[in-house]
Every structure is written in structure tokens, then in C-alpha cells.
């Protein structure tokens, strides 16, 4: 692993990694059963330098922003490296957003360039939202079919013919490296400005617990625009000379096959996928004939007893050989993140000898704040603060539960173009997470719900009510407002979070079947994970500020006076 304390920027560290590990395999890309590409670090450099050259020639200046909207693949990482090489600021966007949402964030970010793939571009180019992003000067599209009109974009592959050496542009630790959107496709975009130092420090902290090395293979499934995959599916493995495996299709059968095929060392999953994996395995265990099942259960019990204090991978692989060989036999840990994972799921895998690196974090804090160090494994907590993280609980109640605050070199420098929001979020150097927690006697953090008005789905999606409200604008009601149900009626839980629509009807109006249908129709325009689950009726005018903005906290307090179970009318 490179000594990151010597580096000023992501680009400088990656540049040296490509030289130091030149003969190691850095990327494998597979499409179903076909391996499409296998690149060494040297070959990666040969692909990236021409792109950096063409980005510079097209006018990408230091500190200018360039966005990537692409599914996980080798060209994502090649493009990101080229942008860093030029001293640019990377804006990684979620390819799963709608084209209008992507244009909105492209406009907000002020990106001058965009690198995207043809299927994404096809939809972006056809979207009316394009007119919003006048800042975008140059667009590169990968894998576009020949003789296709690219609507003003250029072909990514054309860059590869340019053999002029690009000029490396150094950056300093405090320069912004990326703008990562933690939310904000509707109301108020939250573009987290992450510095080079944020990444360098986070990488040191994470790899101290979960190291990479040449020969280690990371299966990249979470979108790389996500903070977790960017760190453990790109920067972390690269500065250690490890290999990143990309799959062009995420169908469960191909993901399952990838583990033994590529002898995966680490993978990151969201809780939904982990739970699904658990269900699949449990069904297979249950289907075992009685005698075999007894033997299997005995092996699990022995493994459980012998790994109580810490994982013993070699032993677990021997005891539960069939389970481990299904995962390729070299899996060291499953990293789970993006949302809260239920303890019984974590325990299920640990009992099989597969440690799950469970933690807690948020984009604003530079990925992870706490991670379970597995000494011993604790399914009931999200682990201890990572090295370099100061975490405290403020305003604790009688039960010791209060808001989690974080101070660290990994905390973002602020939200792009949002000084007020930044000042509300980072107070006296402490990041207010809006999450509720408490430390136990062993120094492990436990989570107990949220203080903030938002939800996180099992798929790791952060949904803010403001982001979905606009879809209901045509509703024929006096006024409405979307809330996280747990914001109105606080619950000591991080699972099963839902959004509700608070409605104030016109005088004499009632909640008719037609109105419900209308709400359902509008709701269905939202991506499935963003939809509201119920309606709450409110019979007074919404409290508003002098500028007529809804006072959400006061409205929530008033709504909370009703009983949750009866107040929410299910859709």
C-alpha cells in the first residue's frame, strides 16, 4: 500500500499506484458469462492518459468540474482518473436517476464536461431537462453504435488515438476533489464538496481495518458514484495494487457466479441485497436432508463457538467448506452500508464464518464514521469510531440517546452553493448528523432512529421529502407537505421508514376515492423507492414563515398530536 501521508491528492496517489503496481491486474470486466476486459495497471494508464489529454485539449482546467454518469465499469474508473490527472473536480452522478434529475444536478454542479455511456446518453439527449445545463460544454459518450447521431456529444473512444502525453496537474489536500450529491433531486440539492484530504484520510482509516493487497479482488456492485464504492471499489484497492471486478449485469445469477469465478475477497452490499442473500442461503439449508442438516447445524455451532472472540477465516472455510466455496473460498468480508442492517442478518453471516463489516456513515462525513472491527464481532452495534474520528452524543435523553456529532479530517468542506445549509450542518467544526445514537460501555455506537426529516431505504437511498413534493403540485387540495413518518412520530428504529403526505383539504372537501386515485397516480410517477405510503389529513392552515414557507417542524409537532396508527390512511 502507498504511504498516503506523503500525498496531496487522489490524482497524485493514483498516478504513483499505476507505476508501482504496473504488472498487477487492476480491472476485470465481465458481461454475463463473457469476460470483456482484463487490464493491468500499466494498461489502465495507457487508456487513461489519452483521455486526460483530450480533456485538457477540450479545455478542462484545474478546479473545473467534470461529471460521470455511468454504470459500474472500467471506463468509469478510467474517466475518473483522467479527470483527477487534469486537476479537475469529479462530479459522480447516480445513473439510476431520471434524465431530468441528472440534468438538474449537472446544472447545479456547474460541470463543464460530462462522460457518460450511450444508453444513458440516449435518454439524456431526449430529455427536455437538457436546456437547464447550459454550463456543459463537452460531452463524451462511450460505446456509441457507429453512424449514430450523438446529438452534439463526442465519442469517448476517439480519445484513445491521441498519443500526446498529458500534463499532470497537482492539487493540494484542501482542494475540492469531488462533489457528491447526498440528495436533492427535487428541492435543495445537497452537493457535498469533498476534499482530497477527506479521501486520503478515510482511505488510511478504512484500510487499517480492512486491508487490500495485490491479488485481492473486490466485486464492485454498489454504484461507483456512491461514497462507499468510490472508496472501497476504486481508490482503496488501487492504492494497494488490488483488482476491481465489474459486472455489466447485476442479475442475481451472474453476481452469484462471479464469487467463485473471480475468487472475490471483498464485496460491498446494501442491506436489501444482503438480506436477499440470507434468504436464499437459508432456503438451501432448510432443503438439506435431515441428516445433512444436523451435521451442518453442528458445524455452524462449532464455528460460532470458535469465532466468538474474533474471525478465524481458515478454520471457518474448513468447517463450512461448501458455503465458503460458493463464495469462492477467499472472501474475507462483506462490507455492508448505505442503510441500517438488521442484527440478525449480520449474525447469520458471521455464524457461517463470513464477517460482515457493518458500520455507520454518511457522505458528508466521508463515507464511514464507525465500523465494526470484528474483535469481537458485534451484530447489535455499528462498531467503534474509525481512527481519526471524534464522535460525541449531544443533548442525550434519560436513556443516553442523543444526536450524533462528528469531527474529523474526513468531513466535507460544505455543501456546494449552500452556505446557510452548511452553517446549519457543520457547527463549530462538528458535523451534525441528524441521526440518534448512544455509545455502550465497550465504546460501540448503537443507532436509534433519526432527528431529521428524511428516510433511508434498504437499498441505501436517501430520500428527502422536499425531493418528492413537486410531483404532487397539481393536487386539487388547499395545501400539502411530505414528511418522513418517523419525523412526525419519532421511533427508536432505523428500519421500515416511510414517507407520508400531509394534506389540508379545501373547505367542504373530503378525501374521496377519486382524490386517492389521483394521489396514487401522481405517486406512481416517482421511482418506486421514493413513493409515499400514506396520507395524513390536517384540518388547519399549515404554519408558515413570513415568506410563506411551511414551518415543517411546527407542522410535524401538530400532526404528532394525532395517533400514528389511526392518522395514516394507507394508499
Amino acid at each position, binding site marked *: 500500500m502507498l504511504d498516503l501521508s506523503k500525498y496531496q491528492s487522489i490524482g497524485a496517489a493514483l498516478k504513483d499506484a499505476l507505476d508501482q503496481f504496473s504488472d498487477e491486474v487492476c480491472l476485470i470486466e465481465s458481461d454475463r458469462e463473457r469476460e470483456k476486459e482484463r487490464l493491468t495497471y500499466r494498461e489502465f494508464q495507457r487508456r487513461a492518459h489519452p483521455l486526460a489529454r483530450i480533456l485538457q485539449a477540450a479545455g478542462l482546467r484545474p478546479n473545473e468540474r467534470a461529471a460521470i454518469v455511468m*454504470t459500474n465499469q472500467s471506463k468509469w474508473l478510467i474517466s475518473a482518473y483522467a479527470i483527477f490527472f487534469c486537476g479537475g473536480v469529479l462530479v459522480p452522478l447516480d445513473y439510476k436517476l431520471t434524465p431530468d434529475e441528472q440534468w438538474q444536478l449537472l446544472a447545479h454542479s456547474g460541470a463543464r464536461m460530462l462522460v457518460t455511456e450511450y444508453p444513458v446518453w440516449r435518454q439524456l439527449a431526449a430529455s427536455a431537462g437538457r436546456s437547464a445545463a447550459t454550463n456543459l460544454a463537452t460531452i463524451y459518450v462511450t460505446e456509441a453504435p457507429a453512424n449514430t447521431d450523438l446529438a452534439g456529444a463526442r465519442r469517448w473512444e476517439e480519445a484513445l488515438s491521441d498519443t500526446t502525453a498529458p500534463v499532470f496537474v497537482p492539487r493540494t489536500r484542501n482542494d475540492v476533489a469531488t462533489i457528491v450529491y447526498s440528495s436533492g433531486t427535487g428541492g435543495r440539492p445537497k452537493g457535498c464538496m469533498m476534499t482530497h484530504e477527506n479521501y486520503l484520510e478515510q482511505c488510511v482509516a478504512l484500510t487499517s481495518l480492512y486491508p487490500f493487497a495485490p491479488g485481492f479482488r473486490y466485486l464492485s456492485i454498489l454504484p461507483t458514484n456512491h461514497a462507499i464504492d468510490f472508496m472501497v471499489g476504486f481508490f482503496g484497492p488501487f492504492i494497494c495494487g488490488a483488482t476491481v471486478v465489474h459486472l455489466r449485469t447485476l442479475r442475481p445469477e451472474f453476481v452469484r457466479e462471479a464469487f467463485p469465478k473471480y475468487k472475490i475477497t471483498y464485496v460491498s452490499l446494501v442491506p436489501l441485497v444482503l438480506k436477499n442473500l440470507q434468504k436464499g442461503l437459508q432456503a438451501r439449508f432448510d432443503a438439506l436432508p435431515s441428516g445433512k442438516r444436523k451435521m451442518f447445524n453442528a458445524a455452524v455451532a462449532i464455528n460460532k463457538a470458535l469465532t466468538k472472540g474474533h474471525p478465524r477465516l481458515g478454520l471457518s472455510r474448513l468447517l463450512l467448506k461448501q458455503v465458503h466455496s460458493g463464495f469462492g473460498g477467499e472472501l474475507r468480508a462483506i462490507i455492508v452500508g448505505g442503510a441500517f442492517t438488521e442484527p440478525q442478518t449480520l449474525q447469520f453471516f458471521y455464524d457461517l464464518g463470513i464477517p460482515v463489516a457493518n458500520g455507520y456513515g454518511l457522505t458528508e462525513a466521508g463515507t464511514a464514521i464507525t465500523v465494526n472491527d470484528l474483535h469481537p464481532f458485534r451484530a447489535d452495534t455499528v462498531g467503534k469510531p474509525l481512527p481519526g474520528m471524534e464522535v460525541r452524543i449531544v443533548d442525550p435523553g434519560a436513556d443516553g440517546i442523543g444526536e450524533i456529532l462528528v469531527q474529523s479530517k474526513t468531513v466535507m468542506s460544505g455543501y456546494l452553493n449552500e452556505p446557510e445549509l452548511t452553517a446549519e450542518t457543520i457547527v463549530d467544526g462538528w458535523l451534525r448528523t441528524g441521526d440518534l445514537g448512544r455509545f455502550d460501555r465497550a465504546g460501540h455506537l448503537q443507532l436509534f432512529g433519526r432527528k431529521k426529516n428524511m428516510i433511508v431505504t434498504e437499498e441505501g437511498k436517501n430520500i428527502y421529502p422536499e425531493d418528492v413534493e413537486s410531483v404532487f403540485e397539481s393536487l386539487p387540495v388547499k395545501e400539502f407537505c411530505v414528511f418522513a413518518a418517523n419525523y412526525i412520530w419519532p421511533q427508536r428504529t432505523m428500519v421500515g421508514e416511510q414517507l407520508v403526505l400531509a394534506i389540508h383539504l379545501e373547505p367542504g372537501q373530503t378525501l374521496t376515492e377519486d382524490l386517492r386515485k389521483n394521489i396514487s397516480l401522481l405517486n406512481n410517477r416517482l421511482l418506486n423507492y421514493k413513493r409515499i405510503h400514506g396520507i395524513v389529513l390536517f384540518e388547519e392552515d399549515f404554519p408558515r414563515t413570513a415568506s410563506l414557507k411551511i414551518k415543517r417542524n411546527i407542522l410535524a409537532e401538530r400532526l404528532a398530536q394525532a395517533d400514528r396508527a389511526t392518522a395514516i390512511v394507507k394508499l
Partner: protein
Amino acid sequence: MRTIDQTTQEILDLASKHFNVPAGTLAPDDDFFKKLGIDSLQTLELLSRIENHFNIELPDYEVQGVSDFRTLASRIQSRL
């Protein structure tokens, strides 16, 4: 060559069989997430079934953002 209506019906049949829903209870404009109560992973499983049935490959990006049977059928039809 199948018509779009035939393709749609075959998808509805596959979905009702895969998720044990009585035949005839699914309609082309149904939101399959909501109607079947499934998540994105289960949708991917259904897509694999559909690919095998129609003997086609449907890249993940083709079904990105699709949530009703009719749109899904049109994406499949274009690859038959």
C-alpha cells in the same frame, strides 16, 4: 413474430407464475413493484425468467426506471 399484445400477455403469465399470483389478476398498466409487492432484486429475477422465455438478452439499462408491464413488453418486443 409475436404481436405486442401477445408479448405483454406472456409477460403477465410469467409474472403471475413466478410470484404465485392468480392468472388474470395482473394488467398491462399495473405497477409491478406495487401490485406484486416486490423489490428491485425480485424484478431482476423476473427479468431472467423473461430472458429465458423469449430467448433474448435484455441489458440492465433497458429496464432502468421501468415499473409497468406494458413498457417492459415494449422493451422486449424491440429485441424480438
